[in-house]
């Protein structure tokens, strides 16, 4: 086996997703480039990926979140952007994790609404809202999947 010498040691990579009528993925990438100061930014179809020291990445993300607070979502990524081991172009197809993102991106509009509403709540109201029961997912599998499919 040949030895492996890792690149970008000590960096973190984060995905920034946007799902908004007001902000496009390109807006996000442009805003990130403006304050990048050498931090690696990669524009993607859903927003961008940022790779750098944890502090630098956090600085840029804090700024980006302000652009559309309820509709920008951030997640850690194990790989640096464009890594051939994970790149669709090299694998012939999307890595499995992509489909998981696709699934959750179909739900983030509910999250955006939830974030917006809970932001306006007093602590008591929040506690009351958190005390609400979500209906038990008896017939979740097929029924909800189908309704989601119809909505799509």
């Amino acid at each position: 086996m040949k030895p492996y010498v890792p690149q970008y040691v000590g960096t973190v990579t984060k995905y920034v997703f946007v799902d908004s009528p007001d902000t496009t993925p390109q807006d996000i990438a442009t805003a990130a480039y403006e304050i990048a100061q050498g931090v690696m930014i990669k524009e993607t179809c859903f927003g961008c990926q940022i790779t750098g020291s944890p502090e630098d990445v956090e600085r840029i993300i804090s700024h980006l979140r302000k652009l559309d607070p309820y509709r920008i979502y951030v997640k850690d990524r194990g790989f640096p952007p464009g890594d051939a081991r994970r790149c669709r172009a090299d694998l012939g197809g999307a890595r499995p994790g992509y489909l998981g993102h696709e699934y959750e991106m179909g739900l983030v509009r509910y999250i955006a609404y939830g974030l917006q509403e809970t932001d306006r709540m007093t602590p008591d109201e929040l506690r009351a809202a958190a005390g609400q029961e979500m209906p038990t997912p008896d017939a979740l599998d097929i029924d909800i999947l189908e309704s989601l499919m119809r909505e799509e």
Partner: protein
Amino acid sequence: MSEQPVRIAQITCGAEYSGIQNEITTAAETVGGKMFYPDVALKDVKRAYKDFGLPVKSPDLKLAIARAQAIVEGRIEADGIFIASCFRCAEAAIVRNELRRYIVENSRIPVVSYSFNERTGSSTLLTRLEALTTIARRRSLMAREVQVGTTMGVDSGSSTTKCIIMQDNEIIGTGWRPTTEVLKSADEVVALALEEAGLKISDIDAIGTTGYGRFLIGKHLNADLVQEELTVNSKGAVYLADAQKGFATVIDIGGMDNKAISVNDGIPGSFTMGGICAGASGRFLEMTAKRLDVDITELGALSMKSEGGEDVPMNSYCIVFGTQSLVNALAAGYKREDVAAAACHSVAQQVYEQQLQEVDIKEPVIMVGGSSLIQGLVRAMGRMLNTEVVVPHHSQYIGATGGALLASGFIDKKKEA
């Protein structure tokens, strides 16, 4: 390699997390293939899962179903398909088996199915992936049904080395030796076959090699064709059994591993290769013969004196315990012929349980390789499958015959050159 790589669709669950993804990729590249993930979207997964109707729980298996469907429906092109999942995962085994069946029934794309663990290395995968790339790349060569000119096939197996010389669609020379040193054994069988045929090596128009030692002897003999035994043996089997058209199943219980190949028009559609332990191999029968103090060539006749030996307690799952069962059975007073038949039954049962579940059994069932000469084993397999098993003439020379047959495809090329 100057040729375009053969595109092999990877439909697996657990390979990356078992730490063997690189082994798969490496094995494919070694044989001129390239693994790729069939690209599907989430909606394809939801649709495929619903269409297929197998309610699995693991998301990656749902993804596997969608990937297979995308290929079968022609939305994604692939030259071959590699389906694999973790050894001992029941859920994945069900999916793997059903997907293989679905692909074979609905497409002409060759498929190999395999279960791995973290110890699976690229060398284990090599022959299987080589067979996939061969089928994809050499379809026209594989279509050959008649041998022409004077050709030689050499099969360098783990137990024995065989040579066949053919001329104008007839076998005119044979050579057979236990494998000791790979090259020395090959030279010996070639000399034997040439002598029987009354020819010199310079009379041979083309040479094909197969088996474990194929690369080494291929280089040594300057062979025209060096090809893995899965495709060569299937070709040899349907040729000798006169079953070149339509479906057939080829079973080859070898010295080190077993092959079960589902063939359509002489080309393997799906196949498995393996054997968890030597208990399910020809090696166990050699041990049995030794313990019963008969030559391996007499074991078949001895076993046929028995009704089948099914009542003799026998565990051949492991060669060590299997041998212990032999000793116990003899000590308990069972007759030698019953013990011989029980050993045959046990090997047939292991092959049935471990391998024949992974291919579709379609008649005729053709048994080949040295072990097909042990009548008790053929009888046991026939009873297991409830069919009359076909053992063609020269069945122990199947790889060598396939090699000689396919090598004749190179004669024209040489003349053109």
